């Protein structure tokens, strides 16, 4: 039982990281109908920036929540800005071009980031500083042991997800986003500045991916310039499983993916870890072609 709960917690915290990334895919898909292949690279850049930031300010010397939060905020600002640039310089000029051009550009941007990552950061893996105390004895309820790192990651990811949901569903800006994602031309007719909304969507998505990068660094400290591609791909799978374009779907898909990965590692064979994501995708999509919470939306009335 104890072991089971441990796996659940591990799975959820992994799932939460996927969720932060999957949200970005789904948001951008919503407003631009674009699968932003460069999104996974935001996670990588978040991890590297977080690492340099934490090292520069020697935050690992006194591990604690304040150092972590500081790193997180700084990273989110930086990746948010990168996201803004990507939209402005790579995608916006193509706004009247066919979809396929946009998609190819996305692949190009992704490769650009991977290679410049190798150039700038070096291709050898580096180690993310330990920003949270890793003392297994401190968190215990009866027989149950909680890994403080896992709980911290879970907590931060949850807070960010809730903040995002509030932004999207409770604010004026969020209403604008949902309007643009339903139909951009219609939104413009009401005076909603679609271009700004799209730009903001990229910023938000990239900031969350940056946060995910820091959290990944905490849990799996070995980071390298290509780390974003598999993580990005799996999160994308999570978004598709949940129903791409649907926010709650992305979170649900990500949590399910995290849990199933953890259970495969825990009870079956660790080698199948990465295969599970794709098996998962295929099974769910055979059963529900538009994803768990996706609807067969009528395109553009």
């Amino acid at each position: 039982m104890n072991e089971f709960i441990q796996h659940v917690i591990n799975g959820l915290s992994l799932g939460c990281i996927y969720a932060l990334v999957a949200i970005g895919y789904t948001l951008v898909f919503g407003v631009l109908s674009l699968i932003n292949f460069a999104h996974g690279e935001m996670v990588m850049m978040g991890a590297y920036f977080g690492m340099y930031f934490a090292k520069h300010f020697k935050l690992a010397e006194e591990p604690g929540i304040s150092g972590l939060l500081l790193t997180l905020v700084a990273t989110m600002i930086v990746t948010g800005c990168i996201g803004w640039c990507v939209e402005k310089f790579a995608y916006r000029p193509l706004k009247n071009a066919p979809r396929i051009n946009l998609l190819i550009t996305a692949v190009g941007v992704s490769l650009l980031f991977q290679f410049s990552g190798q150039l700038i950061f070096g291709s050898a893996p580096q180690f993310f500083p330990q920003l949270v105390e890793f003392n297994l004895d401190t968190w215990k309820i009866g027989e149950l042991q909680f890994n403080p790192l896992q709980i911290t990651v879970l907590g931060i990811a949850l807070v960010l997800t809730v903040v995002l949901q509030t932004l999207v569903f409770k604010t004026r800006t969020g209403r604008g986003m949902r309007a643009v994602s339903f139909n951009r031309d219609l939104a413009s007719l009401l005076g909603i500045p679609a271009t700004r909304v799209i730009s903001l969507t990229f910023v938000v998505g990239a900031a969350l991916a940056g946060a995910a990068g820091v959290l990944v660094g905490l849990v799996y400290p070995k980071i390298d310039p290509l780390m974003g591609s598999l993580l990005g791909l799996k999160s994308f799978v999570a978004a598709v499983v949940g129903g791409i374009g649907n926010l709650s779907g992305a979170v649900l898909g990500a949590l399910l993916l995290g849990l199933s990965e953890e259970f495969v590692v825990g009870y079956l064979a660790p080698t199948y870890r990465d295969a599970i994501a794709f098996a998962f995708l295929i099974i769910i999509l055979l059963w529900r072609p538009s994803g768990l919470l996706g609807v067969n939306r009528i395109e553009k009335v």
Partner: protein
Amino acid sequence: MGNNVLLEVRDLSVRYGAVQALKSVHFDLIKGEILCLLGANGAGKTTLLKTLSGGLSPDSGTIRLHGSNLLALSTEARARAGMIHVPEGRGIFLNLSVEENLDLGAWTKRYTKTDYRAKLDEVFELFPRLKERLAQNAGTLSGGEQQMLAIGRAWMAEPEVLLLDEPSLGLAPKLIDKIFEIISTLQSKGATILLVEQNAEQALTIGNRGILLETGLVRMQGSAKELLASEEMRKSYLGLA
């Protein structure tokens, strides 16, 4: 009369590739009037509205609102300038609730809470049904209710010019009467309306003036009375022979 011209359209030509959809369209929209835009299917009515609100850019011609050039403005900026377009097929955000749709209608107006409330009450007075459906997903509304929502949402923006594209399309006769009545009410509240309609006779009954488009050309232009009386109108569009 010159001073009362709200919207001035001159020599407007629009093409879709090789198809010339509007040819030198020329008219004024006078403050406070209902101007009916009539014509057969494919005459270019929707094209004209889209060009006015910014969805299409013309090959040539000018559009001026209050004397200032609208063509220089983006669609959003035109909405901010008071040009509100209720598109063909209503244009409801089916993924949002009725309340959120109405709220988006007020996007260009940064109302205070009280003003917002007052505006909303005004819309509920026009369409009491919307008040009952406030929390409901707009996708679950009936066609008629969606049309009410589309007009109500446009009204939230306090439009200077209201562009209505076939508001009676697909509605039951009783509801059509009701929609025309509402359009008249909006006029009496000070709106200036460009009304595209297939129900030519009913439109001209509430309208002040009319324009007849034929394959992108202004075929006829005049007061509602003149158009109703015209032999040609009666034959081709009113079915009265």
